[in-house]
């Protein structure tokens, strides 16, 4: 006998507005951070997360009830939500913080997400988010969220197969020396790795439709979370300039140089 109709899945995808991957990062003159007056776009790992949510729906059709995206950030982050909506998400939540506020840390974000999840009347079955954001490279939010929720977690996913009926997600992770396959009970937190998929470009008709999709605005205070940073940035510096290498004429010369540099474990045949 078939089990009673599986509850429809609700997917939540947190996304972050970050400095565009193609921008050359420069430290600001005050050395308090980087120059933010540059092109921003959706964190690439989050794009992969949105894409995966949309693909899960394309595979499972009606079994996916909703795809909601959420961002915690200054007013400009609304752009990032629109992009996610244009890629195929249904609705969005913007937890708005003032432009002048410091960017929230992973724990603050995870707590905010927890509060949001608890507010969702229909519940959340899958949270898909980037394994890290390319600005701070902290790589912690997904794990913290799973911990706070007491949910399964599957990080650095390279393949996600959701079985809606049995409420499990089979997730493949690329680890040193091979592939690890996890079978997770829903609800689950999945973080995306680079090879999970190649995100689509939002098509123009979908960009136009995204305009009509709802964005709910909230403040951190509405959720009762405190986003005050726990870390203090003391100074930001450029990495030391690489001093140019030298050219060698042949292998012997190379070996001699290596030896001079103290690398001795080279045996000549």
């Amino acid at each position: 006998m078939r089990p009673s109709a599986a509850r429809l899945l609700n997917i939540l995808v947190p996304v972050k507005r970050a400095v565009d991957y193609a921008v050359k990062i420069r430290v600001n003159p005050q050395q308090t951070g980087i120059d933010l007056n540059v092109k921003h776009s959706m964190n690439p790992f989050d794009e992969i997360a949105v894409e995966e949510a949309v693909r899960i729906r394309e595979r499972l059709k009606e079994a996916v009830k909703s795809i909601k995206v959420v961002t915690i950030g200054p007013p400009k982050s609304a752009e990032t939500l629109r992009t996610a909506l244009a890629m195929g998400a249904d609705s969005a939540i913007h937890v708005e913080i003032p432009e002048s506020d410091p960017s929230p840390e992973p724990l603050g974000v995870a707590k905010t997400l927890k509060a949001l999840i608890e507010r969702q009347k229909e519940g959340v079955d899958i949270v898909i988010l980037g394994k890290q954001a390319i600005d701070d490279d902290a790589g912690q939010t997904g794990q913290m969220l799973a911990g706070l929720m007491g949910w399964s977690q599957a990080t650095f996913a390279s393949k996600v197969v959701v079985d809606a009926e049995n409420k499990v997600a089979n997730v493949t992770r690329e680890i040193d020396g091979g592939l690890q396959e996890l079978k997770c009970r829903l609800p689950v937190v999945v973080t995306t790795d680079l090879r999970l998929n190649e995100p689509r470009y939002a098509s123009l008709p979908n960009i136009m439709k995204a305009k009509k999709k709802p964005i709910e605005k909230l403040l951190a205070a509405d959720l009762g979370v405190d986003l005050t940073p726990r870390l203090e940035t003391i100074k930001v510096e450029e990495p030391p300039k690489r001093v140019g290498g030298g050219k060698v004429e042949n292998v012997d010369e190379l070996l001699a140089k290596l030896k001079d540099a103290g690398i001795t474990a080279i045996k000549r045949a």
Partner: protein
Amino acid sequence: MFRNAARSLTAVRALQRTHQPSLARAFSASGLTLNSLDTFTEEEQMLRESVRRFATDVVGPKVRDMDEQEQMDPQIIKGLFDQGLMGIETSADHGGAESSFTSAIIAIEELAKVDPSVSVMCDVHNTLVNTILRKYATKDQQDKWLPLLSESKLGSFCLSETGSGSDAFALQTRAKKDGDHWVINGSKMWITNSAEAEIFLIFANTDPSKGYKGITCFIATKDMGIQIAKKEQKLGIRASSTCTLNFDDLRIPEENIIGGIGRGYKLAIEILNEGRIGIAAQMLGLAIGAFEKVVPYTYTRHQFGQPIASFQGLSFQLARAAISIESAKLMTYNAARRKEEGKEFAKEAAMAKYWASVVAQEVSGGAIEWAGGVGFTRETGVEKFWRDSKIGAIYEGTSNIQLQTIAKFIQKEYS
């Protein structure tokens, strides 16, 4: 690390300016809010970003090959349809994106930054073919043709002939009534997209005794018997097909007349007025594409022990080119917004088209020189921009014809 791994980021680093967010064209309660000319709506910014990526990732790797082969890759045509870029202003009911004219301009510009051939294909299809149908076709005609043009079938605009270029309305192609059909005889020359197109807007004279007032616009499909003859071998935009077409007793049903008998003249003039803004955008994108391709190199290339861009002689050339680009940009966007706002725009469109084609040629020519020897080789793709730039001074009205248009406005105002 990510940088190397992400997608196929072969990309020339975009010097893209970040546009200020989304208040574009806003009308506040107290009245009009005035914005800078390069203010865009949120959708327009998203479109730019999306087209930029499509152009870099999908078109970029094929540019050189398509130019060498003088052939448009069918996957690119399909990609443009899939991205919704072939029905930019067409209503959603007709399968289009229902977006703004400026969106079309942005798409054309972004495509041209990577390949002006792909750009003109999108330009002709949208700003000429779709627009004629959107503006002048009956509801039935729109229901029939617009969805095809939004979803899968490429269009061509067939006006020029061997004997009628600048003097377009001297065209010799004739249409004779035969029952409920029209029979067309004659030929067209220089028709963009025609090797790949399936839908053709053909201008023919139904009553030569009335001169240009006999010119009528017909819509036809390739399978009605349009003969696509010689494909031109060109200096530039080589991946964009340009062919001669022959009509030998081509029978077109009466209901395929667009805009009424004898109205083709007016329709062509009006459509080309706005089409010119598209060509301006193509030339603008081309100039930016050449600039962005070469300028980063000038900071890495050392001669006399320092980056060549650090010599004042070169850096001032870059500065002048940047000024030219800025001027072409503002003129193009301004003409587009005027058109969108329902203001007069024919003069501004002619100016933008003229000037952008001058800037495109100057900047792409300069770019070859700034790159030195490598700029002169085909491998780097810099010289291609220069070859492609020449067409900007020829199609949709030569530079002299633009000057003539502008001069007429001056005369009207001052004489």
